[in-house]
């Protein structure tokens, strides 16, 4: 209790802090809920990944590393992991290239327009991913809009869906707003006066941008790329609807392992591998970015 008292007096409230022990009741329901339905299930999944899958039934409580040996020893899974990370990387790079102009524009546009543009940017996020993928199916499909148009001009049938291209289009579409919003957040804190000052000292617009605005916006770029990569790695709906089964990614395999093959131990181990490798990649990326940030400040 002494620690709490010290914290209260350190904050120096305007009115002497009254003690209501019952305010703790406010946080109790959510804490219990998160403990039971979030923390314990995740811990349980880690535990599950070390159990044995018998021929009959779901699992037996016997420790094994066999699931990890299978997950890490099979070249099939490595190929799928490589696919998953590769598509996520491509998606991240494309959303960065497309998201930056969007963010730059929204951060510099007049206040009157900003509200409307933010609505345009955020509202697709509130439309179901299924509906948006469906829209792309209508556009990219074999008898879709683009093919109807191309064929009416006597062109060949284009394969725009049920392959990697379709997946990338869908992923970029879904994650572009996240990237643009992250970058806009940090661009908004940079005064346009800085760029103007550089201009008035004789820098070209591009030079002013590269030397002033871009380095200062790196934290937003950093946050956006992290977010989009993590989201893309775990995406499931878009690869299934726009890639069919022609392109396999890890979340598809994991869900199949759980729901169809009914192999929870191996499914959990595969999930841990995907999670672990993603975390390792991000750790490496964060190290790299921190160095870049320090360098750009110099």
């Amino acid at each position, binding site marked *: 209790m002494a620690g709490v008292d010290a914290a209260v007096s350190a904050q120096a409230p305007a009115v002497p802090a009254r003690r209501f022990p019952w305010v703790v009741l406010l946080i109790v329901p959510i804490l219990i809920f998160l403990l039971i339905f979030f923390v314990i299930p995740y811990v349980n999944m880690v535990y599950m990944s070390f159990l044995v899958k018998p021929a009959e039934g779901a699992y037996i409580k016997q420790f094994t590393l066999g699931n990890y040996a299978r997950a890490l020893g099979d070249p099939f899974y490595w190929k799928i992991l490589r696919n998953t990370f590769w598509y996520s990387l491509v998606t991240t790079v494309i959303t960065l290239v497309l998201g930056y102009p969007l963010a730059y524009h929204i951060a510099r546009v007049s206040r009157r327009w900003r509200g409307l543009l*933010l609505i345009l*940017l955020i509202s697709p996020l509130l439309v179901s991913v299924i509906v948006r993928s469906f829209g792309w199916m209508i556009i990219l499909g074999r008898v879709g809009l683009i093919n109807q148009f191309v064929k009416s001009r006597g062109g060949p049938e284009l394969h725009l869906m049920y392959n990697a291209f379709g997946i990338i289009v869908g992923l970029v579409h879904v994650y572009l707003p996240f990237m643009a919003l992250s970058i806009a957040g940090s661009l908004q804190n940079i005064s346009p006066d800085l760029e103007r000052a550089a201009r008035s000292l004789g820098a070209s617009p591009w030079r002013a941008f590269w030397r002033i605005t871009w380095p200062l916006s790196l934290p937003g770029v950093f946050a956006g790329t992290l977010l989009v990569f993590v989201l893309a790695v775990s995406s499931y709906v878009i690869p299934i609807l726009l890639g069919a089964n022609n392109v396999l990614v890890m979340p598809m395999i994991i869900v199949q392992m759980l729901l169809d093959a009914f192999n929870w131990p191996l499914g959990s181990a595969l999930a841990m591998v995907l*999670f672990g490798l993603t975390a390792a990649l991000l750790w490496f990326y964060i190290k790299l970015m921190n160095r870049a940030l320090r360098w750009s400040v110099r």
Partner: protein
Amino acid sequence: MKSRNLGGWWLGITVAILYLFLLAPIIIVVSSAFNAGEYLRFPPQGLSLRWFVRFSQSPSFVQAFKFSLWLAFFVTIASTVVGTMGALFIARYAHRARDALRILMIAPLQFPAILTGIALLIFFYATGIGTRGMRPLFLGHTLVTLPYVFLTVSTVLVGFDRSLEEAARSLGAGPLRTFWRITLPIIKGGIISGALFAFITSFDQFPVSLLLISVGNTTLPIALFDYLRFSFEPTAAAVSTLSVLLSVAIVVLIQRLVGLESIYWGGPR
């Protein structure tokens, strides 16, 4: 001219194309729902509501629609009450534990929803909570919607002027009365926005539902997903349009209440 330093018209055109790219699939889905023809065509061959009629005659879609609405309703109530209480505590009384608690509250948003679904599926089986009926979906959806309520309510609490409450208290109002008469009316916008967010997140939720549905308890996104894997009829467009309309209504409401800007923190569905 003062707002443009770089790009000028080129930036404007690029950005316009990007907004079109963002909205295109949604516009296409909605417009093909009103198509009179037998197939999905764009531009539509005449206007018709026949696919909406077809939807209303499809027992599986109608049932899934109703189920999703009820589910979202219960989830919204639970996560709004519990999330608001948590946000109040953390904003005011948490002090030293504030950062740690905040991270915990937002954690369900940071973990991939598909993994959360898997973890819950295994856990529900193991504990005998089972995967029948609405209960597992209710618990799973409540978990993934809590962070949205927490974030929106926390946002309005940051700008809250505590001296109003202190004035009420010094005039003799009890803590509960102060909460009902002063605090609640002021943070109402944030709470309602959080509730709307929770509602639409539950209604559109896919990965968690995929793992926790059972026979006879299918949500609308799952029904649509199953349908789209095997057929390609405009009925699906009519269903999607209803879902889009719900989203638009919610965007407009949130914009009226607190402004969408206040919640752009960058986090997924």
